[in-house]
């Protein structure tokens, strides 16, 4: 069985008090409790403070480009569906730069887990508005406040019939761990949007601000009802729901490709014995 020591990575360079620490600890607890060995897991990340995440644990890692976590994760899963593939991204990375890939990863229903460190601001580039920044938020680059409407990843995902849609809060680690476990155990594309206070640049959405608003979705809520899910996804403001907002049992992409029904692509060594026959097709 893996231990927390197996997942001990480099020392994070995040600001003291950053919401990412809560996510990091919860993540380690989750994979250890699920008995996942580091070599059975690949974390794909992009750029941003969240992009550094895999260096602070220990597992197979592809730390790629800004916004491009999901295509890389998709390629890895298609080549090896025995591998647990978790994409870790920030709100700018995933909802901004890589927004198109999110739409299509959801449509494909590739069994990738996407954990979004959503701090509603750009941290690494020092405090610009992100797609999830609230309207009116003033920054150096948005001196008149943000004009664009805040992107609602939960509503977007439900609208696209995303296989698993959840929201967690970095300040509520026990609850977040439950969500991460559910997401990992779910078969299909899973989005967990994690509200993550940025103590340096986001002075609006602070720990305090979130604590006053987040509430656990009640146990009797049925996440399989898409209409109800959509209503829940639209809630933002005085009350922000955390928990599993929506879930369905759509068949995942890997189960639909006949070529990999028996074994993963990476385990199938090329068989070129039929080449001569193939060449004959050109006569």
């Amino acid at each position, binding site marked *: 069985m893996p231990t927390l020591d197996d997942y001990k990575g480099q020392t994070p360079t995040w600001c003291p008090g950053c919401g990412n620490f809560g996510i990091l600890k919860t993540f380690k607890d989750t994979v250890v409790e699920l008995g996942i060995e580091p070599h059975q897991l690949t974390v794909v990340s992009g750029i941003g403070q969240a992009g550094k995440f895999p260096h602070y644990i*220990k597992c197979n890692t*592809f730390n790629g480009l800004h916004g491009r976590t999901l295509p890389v*994760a998709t*390629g890895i899963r298609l*080549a090896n569906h025995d591998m647990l593939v978790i994409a870790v991204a920030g709100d700018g990375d995933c909802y901004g730069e890589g927004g198109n*890939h999110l739409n299509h990863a959801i449509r494909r229903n590739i069994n990738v887990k996407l954990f979004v460190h959503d701090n509603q601001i750009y941290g690494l580039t020092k405090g610009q508005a992100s797609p999830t920044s609230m309207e009116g938020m003033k920054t150096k680059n948005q001196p008149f406040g943000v004009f664009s409407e805040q992107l609602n990843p939960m509503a977007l995902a439900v609208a696209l019939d995303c296989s698993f849609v959840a929201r967690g809060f970095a300040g509520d680690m026990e609850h977040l761990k439950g969500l991460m476990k559910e997401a990992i155990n779910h078969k299909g594309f899973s989005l967990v949007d994690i509200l993550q206070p940025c103590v340096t640049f986001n002075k609006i959405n602070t720990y305090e601000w979130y604590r006053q608003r987040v509430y656990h979705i009640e146990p009797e809520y049925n996440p399989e009802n898409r209409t109800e899910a959509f209503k829940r996804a639209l809630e933002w403001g005085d009350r922000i729901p955390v928990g599993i907002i929506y879930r369905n049992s759509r068949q995942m992409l890997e189960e639909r490709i006949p070529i990999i029904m028996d074994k993963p692509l990476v385990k199938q060594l090329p068989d*070129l014995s039929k*080449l001569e026959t193939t060449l004959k097709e050109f*006569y």
Partner: protein
Amino acid sequence: MDYTIKIGGEAGQGIQTIGDTLARVFSRTGYHVFTHQDYESRIRGGHNFFQIRFSDKPVMSSRKKIDILVALDKESIPLHEKELSESGQIIYDSASLKQKYDKPQFLDIPFVNLAVEHGGNKIMANTVATGAVLGMLGMELGILLGIIKDIFGKKGEDIIKANGDAAVAGHDFAVKQCITCSFSAAPLAKPRMLIAGIDSIGLGAVASGCKFYSAYPMTPSTGIMNYIAGKGKEYGIIVEQAEDEIAAINMALGASFAGVRAMTGTAGGGFALMVEGLSLAGMTETPIVIALGQRPAPATGFPTRTEQADLNFALYTSHGEFPRVIFAPGTPEQAFYLTNKAFDLAEKYQIPVIIMFDTYLSDSEWTFEGFDVSKLRNTEYRLRGEAMEKLSEYKRHALTESGVSPLAIPGESKNLVVTDSDEHDEEGHIVEDAETRIKMVNKRLFKKLPLIRQEIEPPVLYGDSKPDIVVVGWGSNYGVMRECVDTLSKNVKIAMLHFSEIYPFPSMDKFDYMKILNNAKLTICIENNATGQFARLMRAETGFEFKASINRFDGRPFLLEELLEEIDANIRRL
């Protein structure tokens, strides 16, 4: 004998079906065949043509003069009548074109009526036309009937018979009515392989153990995706149509990282979107093969036409410095073997390899004796299962003598595989220090590059071994340049120097091609672009300046007579 047949008509009229079928009949009869197409960026209407040249001697370019014109639309007549050779014939259906032509070289064949009468459906009018062409050439129908059986095999005996009857009707009509036809094409020995450049790249990928191909459709690269997808089930290859080219290259890199040979393909515009991914491949040392189909640009340009103007782009694009290999095959045969070599070098040195082609090479079909499977290089360079299990420690970017670090497959052992687009240490983790940076640049770039350069083959010399005149080119101009050399060598000492392995620029170790150039009186660089990109590369790499250049950038390939005339004009100026 050396005949050219042109089929002209609107998009959607089945020009390609007639062309492909005739080309196949000729190659199965044993002839050398070369085809080329000209089409607009539309599904229906407009004017397109398909040109087939066949001969009992090798042919590898298109000619201006045509011997038989099959006019499926009215526009074909004014556009192509003047291209007719002295004994040339035009066949058409006056009922379809709603026009009758009374000149002697016109033969009115009721394609539609004969199709209805003999095949029972006007849909077979193209089969009638195909049969008619063979009738005019004095060829038997046996091979065509065999091809009809292959095409319609699944549709049942009735359809096969109806199409066969339609072909016979067209054939017999032409034999009886074409009084002025003086063509003769007797069957030769054994059938030849007939293959287009684009299928050769697809086939080369399949034959190299490619397991993953992701792409976004874009002319002229889509045919690679079509071919590989068609072979996916048989060879166990996943083909994923990505949402855009950015996703396409990143998916392929993901699959390659996970342990399979991966490839993507696109045209110039799509490659522009892939550029950041190209750099990612360079930094993470992830093997990838990229097929780059050139078409006239900038921007959307001429989507369905041909040009060689992306050489600078392929050479210099990307942020940062890392090794890459660029190939530009000149024939479908070269495309097949170079695609294999692309995979081999990508895997061996963990680098991106770009295969450049263009619409002309993509669409043109050539005939060959056959491809030799035993010449393929399919070495496994990756660390799998037991070999990986045995390692006491594993570092993805370990510093080694050759600069090449062992490439392991994640999940095959407890050893972890870590890589990063940031500058990283041997394990693959982010670093900021100058010392590691220098070590890594040395490893990725300076250690690998000389080894890669040794793998590059010099240009091919064809023609006189001590030529006065040397024509130099790269990529798809191979065939037309070679035929020009054949024709002109009757009068002058001329040779062709053709580059298909472009970068790293071939060294002089294996063949001192600079000596050939330096000793020539006239050197001409022939390119399908406006600025002479290859000539500039040559100057940058060797200091050599061409005496003359022939550049074409109207989106059309060089036809044999046209290039001959231009080379000849340069010779006359000597």
